[in-house]
């Protein structure tokens, strides 16, 4: 017997037509699935009442695939075949990974994305994520009593094309219809109902187990826009455990512990940290493998003291994101706390002090992203009335095209909201040019060499024209899921070429932040490089034009004039070889002057030719 849920007025579905939709927070450490039931968003627990599903997949000797708590429990004894944090490998090449040698996996470098060798064969991070999604899908279908029409899956705001595509692929593999990928901070804001709030700018402070992300969202006319993101991919709740662990070692005078004792003390450290959320002090008692008894009491005050630097460390990305968004603390209407680590009282205090207002904490910080995703899924599945949201997200790095001289022309600037489409016209550089190579790049720097190559394609069949006459319109389009497609169209002939950019491998967030910092650090170099490249392109264009002119009309010059012009050309080539902007510009001025008279004579001759035999009345 089907159990019924209450629908919005007028929206109750016909029998067997219920549009069951879920929101999935596919996390690095834990994953959750949530749905909207009778108008309320709820996280769906498993049969033991547990909400979190550890994002751990184990391939057992008897060919089974175990996901969640059972897999995590065997992590230590079977590390090669028990995969944790597969999210960190999504859309990444082996070269992108931070210190892969420190991880217990047997990596296989494959084109596109790193793969892991397990006893179940070679598994890609997409397949491992699909196993997690499959477990969540099964839980959802058992809880909702029917098949899902779709899911909204959350991804970090900084996820690039490759990582988003990999997430979508994993969902497809798990048999889930992706209604939409949604940025995690946006989902958190939705869960707090900020979309119903007045307009304003909100900060999402997300301190998870191992990562820290901060995002700045602007809500205007019911539309969310991600203004900026920042973070630290190696800072999270685990670091707080580690500080307590170090404190225990120091207090108890311990050193060189076995792996088991380390794990034991870390577990106690974590328990103490969690206890200090509501208590003023926490006892730490453990018996080490050599029988030694560790007995300590950690006060809240000491805990705050030993982790002060970690808390301060989270405020750096906060300031950076504010700077990126060109906002100050006074502009912020509200702060949303996400991630279990934000339960720590001194984190809340530090955030409240920084923003001069108490942060929003009344929803479970572990669930808030999944709840928001569920609410969005409910809207997209058509279970809600007209008070729909349209959500906007942001691209993390500028997207552009290579132009002559190895320069990058930015088409879509970073932090642009998506979906977006921008077009720009380009032209041919050489007479009679019939093809054009397009090189799509991502990054903030001016030179191609300093940006990341995303894709290359060619536009062929351009009708032969003089240089500069062809009009090639290049359109960059980023869809709602953050995926890029680029098309180029020659306007007069209509020939067209396009490419879906699925970059072979993605950027680490370290790389994103490195590319951003470098673009600031190298701003002067970049300007100089751009000037040089532009001067070089101009000079080469001038030389090419003079070559063409000399070939057809060289007879207009006498020997002395010719040798003067040749000298200027030689000087120009020498200046180009020296690669100095000032020298090139000077040589170009000289060459222009030396060829000025020649150009005037050519024009006269051409006009005479054009006019010969013509009657005035026919002109």
């Amino acid at each position, binding site marked *: *017997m*089907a*159990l019924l849920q209450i*629908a919005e007025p007028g929206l*109750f579905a016909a*029998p067997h037509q219920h549009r069951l939709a879920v929101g999935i927070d596919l996390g690095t450490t834990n994953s959750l699935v949530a749905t909207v039931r*009778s*108008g309320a968003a709820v996280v769906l*627990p498993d049969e033991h009442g547990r909400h979190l599903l550890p994002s751990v997949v184990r391939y057992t000797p008897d060919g089974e695939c175990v996901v969640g708590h059972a897999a995590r429990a065997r992590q230590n004894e079977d590390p090669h075949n028990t995969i944790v944090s597969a999210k960190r490998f999504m859309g990444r090449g082996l070269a992108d990974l931070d210190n892969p040698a420190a991880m217990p996996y047997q990596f296989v470098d494959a084109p596109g994305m790193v793969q892991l060798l397990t006893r179940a064969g070679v598994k890609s991070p997409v397949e491992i994520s699909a196993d997690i999604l499959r477990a969540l899908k099964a839980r959802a279908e058992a809880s909702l009593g029917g098949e899902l029409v779709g899911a909204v899956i959350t991804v970090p705001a900084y996820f690039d094309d490759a990582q988003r595509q990999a997430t979508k692929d994993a969902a497809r593999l798990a048999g889930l219809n992706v209604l939409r990928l949604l940025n995690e901070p946006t989902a958190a804001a939705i869960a707090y109902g900020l979309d119903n709030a007045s307009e304003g700018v909100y900060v999402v402070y997300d301190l998870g187990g191992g990562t820290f992300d901060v995002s700045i969202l602007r809500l205007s006319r019911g539309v969310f826009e991600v203004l900026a993101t920042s973070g630290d991919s190696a800072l999270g709740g685990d670091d707080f455990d580690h500080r307590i662990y170090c404190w225990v070692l120091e207090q108890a005078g311990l050193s060189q512990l076995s792996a088991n004792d380390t794990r034991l003390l870390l577990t106690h450290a974590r328990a103490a940290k969690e206890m200090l959320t509501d208590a003023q002090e926490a006892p730490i008692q453990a018996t080490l493998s050599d029988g030694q008894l560790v007995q300590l009491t950690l006060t809240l005050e000491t805990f705050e003291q030993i982790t002060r630097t970690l808390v301060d460390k989270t405020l750096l990305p906060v300031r950076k994101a504010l700077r990126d968004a060109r906002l100050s603390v006074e502009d912020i209407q509200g702060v949303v706390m996400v991630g279990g680590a934000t339960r720590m009282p001194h984190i809340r205090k530090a955030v409240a002090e920084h923003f001069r207002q108490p942060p929003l904490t009344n929803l479970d910080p572990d669930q808030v992203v999944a709840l928001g995703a569920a609410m969005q899924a409910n809207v997209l599945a058509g279970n809600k009335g007209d008070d729909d949201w349209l959500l906007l997200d942001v691209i993390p790095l500028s997207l552009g095209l290579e132009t002559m001289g190895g320069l990058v022309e930015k088409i879509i600037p970073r932090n642009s909201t998506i979906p977006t489409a921008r077009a720009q016209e380009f032209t041919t550089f050489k007479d009679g040019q019939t093809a054009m190579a397009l090189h799509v790049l991502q990054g903030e720097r001016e030179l191609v060499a300093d940006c990341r190559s995303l894709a290359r394609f060619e536009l062929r069949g351009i009708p032969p024209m003089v240089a500069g006459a062809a009009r090639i319109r290049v359109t960059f389009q980023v869809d709602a899921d953050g995926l890029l497609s680029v098309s180029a169209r020659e306007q007069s002939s209509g020939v067209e070429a396009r490419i879906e950019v699925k970059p072979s491998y993605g950027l680490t967030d370290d790389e994103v932040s490195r590319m951003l910092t470098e673009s600031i650090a190298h701003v002067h170099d970049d300007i100089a490089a751009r000037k040089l490249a532009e001067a070089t392109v101009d000079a080469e264009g001038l030389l090419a034009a003079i070559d063409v002119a000399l070939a057809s009309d060289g007879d207009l010059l006498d020997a002395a004039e010719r040798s003067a012009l040749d000298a200027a050309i030689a000087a120009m080539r020498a200046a180009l070889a020296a690669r100095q902007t000032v020298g090139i510009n000077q040589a170009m001025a000289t060459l222009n002057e030396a060829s000025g008279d020649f150009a005037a004579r050519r024009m006269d001759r051409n006009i005479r030719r054009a006019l010969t035999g013509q009657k005035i009345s026919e002109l």
Partner: protein
Amino acid sequence: MGITLTERAAEHVQGFLSKRGKGLGLRLGVKTSGCSGMAYKLEFVDEAGEEDLSFESHGVTLFTDAKSLAYIDGTELDFVKEGLNEGFKFNNPNVKNECGCGESFNV
């Protein structure tokens, strides 16, 4: 006779209404569709219709229309859990047979 809620169902309905932040009560209705003739309808109510009949049960206002009431008079709405699934169930004395899924019925 009219229609009623079990106490547990009433608690859940009140919870859902307060989370939703608006709504006068709950509408129980019947539509002529479904695999077995009739189908239930369960919706929040923001505005009562002119023809609506209303009942009070455990502090919740229940709405229905005269035509629906003919098929569900005497119904008690319950909230039940079955495994991981949970939701509302119509205990309708008028039902002669229902389809396997229980979403539609015949009188």
